[in-house]
């Protein structure tokens, strides 16, 4: 197919538009810190007995491949087929276990770095994942400060795939609690309004501090406020949590690059437009000469 000048210009303008729209989709939306009215979960590590009911309820509700009750010695890793697990901390002969799944950060590194918009915030503020949009690039896995997203590979194509906790969005949108919190029999996982959970967490920490000065609350302010917070009986790093999680600098640079990309795209589009106008003018002049 021969592309004449007019055709080329039209195509160029169209491409610029698509790139521009795409860039808009990638744009970093400045997000306010969690309002406190958000729904959230509080995990009280001191109340966990390690029954793995949360793990099993998640598997069962989300139709993921199940296994018999795992051993803390060999705790399952998070994967596209395992959205919540228990982080094991050996204490003498016993285990202390921290439920580990997506924290649904208010300022989520994964959303920041995702180049295809597969990771985004939903209307309730949780980090949602769209498998259709995922290119399997693995930026989310590289940048999450909690190590939550893990890539598997498509069995047929071998392409990377990710999947993770949805905060039971379909249940929560219908006024139901998350499956893991509903299944928790000891009250270690509670679900509700973030402000209420923070109140409860504060009281619980005060109570625990009487016996254990290491007791602390994690997730109140980290990354704009996490939607999964913890009452811990040890320092966060003991439980494998970063003390001061940050959106990695690479993600910040990517954010800047995104805007830069938009700028370049706009400039390119403007250039194309200008080029088009100049070309039109020249063509018009050429016509006059003839």
């Amino acid at each position, binding site marked *: 197919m021969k592309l004449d000048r007019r055709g080329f210009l039209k195509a160029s303008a169209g491409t610029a538009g698509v790139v521009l729209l795409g860039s808009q989709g990638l744009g970093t939306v400045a997000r306010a810190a969690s309002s406190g009215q958000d729904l959230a979960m509080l995990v009280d590590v001191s109340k966990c007995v390690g029954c793995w009911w949360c793990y099993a*309820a998640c598997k069962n509700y989300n139709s993921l*491949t*199940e*296994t018999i009750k795992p051993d803390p010695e060999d705790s399952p890793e998070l994967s596209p087929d395992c959205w919540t697990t228990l982080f094991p901390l050996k204490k003498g002969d016993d285990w202390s276990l921290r439920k580990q799944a997506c924290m649904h950060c208010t300022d989520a590194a994964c959303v920041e770095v995702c180049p295809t918009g597969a990771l985004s915030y939903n209307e309730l503020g949780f980090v949602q994942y769209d498998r259709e949009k995922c290119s399997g690039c693995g930026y989310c896995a590289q940048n999450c400060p909690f190590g939550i997203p893990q890539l598997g590979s498509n069995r047929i194509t071998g392409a990377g795939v990710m999947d993770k906790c949805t905060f039971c969005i379909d249940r929560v949108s219908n006024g139901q609690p998350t499956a893991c919190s*509903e*299944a928790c029999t000891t009250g270690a996982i509670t679900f509700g309004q973030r402000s209420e959970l923070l109140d409860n967490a504060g009281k619980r920490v005060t109570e625990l501090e009487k016996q254990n000065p290491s007791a602390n609350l994690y997730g109140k302010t980290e990354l704009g406020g996490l939607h999964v917070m913890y009452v811990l009986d040890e320092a966060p790093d003991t439980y494998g949590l970063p003390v001061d999680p940050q959106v990695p600098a690479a993600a910040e640079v990517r954010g800047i690059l995104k805007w830069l990309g938009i700028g370049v795209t706009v400039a390119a589009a403007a250039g194309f437009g200008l080029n088009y106008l100049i070309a039109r003018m020249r063509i018009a002049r050429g016509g006059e000469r003839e």
Partner: protein
Amino acid sequence: MEVWEKAYIKDSKFLESSHGMVGCVICHGGDSSVEEKETAHQEIVIDPSEEGCNTCHSDIALLNDNSLHTTLSGFKSKLEARGGDLSEGSALDTAFDNHCQQCHTSCGQCHVSRPDEMGGGLVSSHVFKKTPSMQNNCIACHGARVGDEYLGNNENVPGDVHWTQAGMTCARCHGQELHGTGMLVSDRYSNSASAQCEDCHADVWTDTDDNPQHQQHLGDLDCQVCHSLAYKNCSSCHVALDEEGVPCRTSEPSQMLFKIGLNPIRSAERPYQYVVLRHPPTCAGTCDYYGSDLLPDFDAEPTWKYATPHNIQLHTPQNESCNSCHGNADLFLTEDDVAPDEIEANRGVIVIEIPAPE
């Protein structure tokens, strides 16, 4: 309809419960990633009780680890007292595994299904019951003697007033004690948490003005001596494997008897001189199929055992008057009542001198 749809696990009461939320695999194992049944069912755990329940119900499970229902230490202690060798691989141990061990109950066999010994099967979908079903669980095993007594199934013997008049199920008296106290005990009478009549009828100690019999006999007679009726006694049980290797047993027809004897386990908790005695099925040759003389010191334990018949009545033939008992040799276990080869074993419980008439 698919086969799995016929399984009784679809009750919404179960599916909406905490146990129902977590799916099958966490407790029962198997491989949920495959659709082919044989592969999916590999390494499946049919009765996950011990491992499955302990984490959440640790308080009860820890107690239950040493309960009679779990350890069967009641059987073991009596066999060992009679010189039985229960060491791994011994003839008696094999007999124990083939027969006695069938009475072991797991958590689930009381709280979700019927006991395996009685054929198993879920009681009410897969719904867990905090209090087991009297009919499907307790009486499934404890039916021939206690169950028949309690419900009044023995010919011409009325049921227990606690059932016939008050409709009390087993659990009304027997609650947490069934999980034991955490101590390994040799029989149910050694369980300090066992139900006692006085738990409810504490007034027996204070109504002595109105009730001279209580004043006279309390502390000397077990309650059942005056307040229970004839009960089933078994004998000559012989265990074996049939031609197909399936455990089986034979015994003499049971006898309805009421026999008062001397207390074989007199203690501070059970100070009574006289108690009701029951003959259980065991005899010296019960395990002869597995080897000769497996209980070399058979006479070390009486074959007439302390009993608490569950057919309690306010009025019984023996409490009609003083002389219903006093001087009535028929009510007492005498040498004539005991099989000649068991007399030595029962020396300590046979009544030599019948209480004189008033």
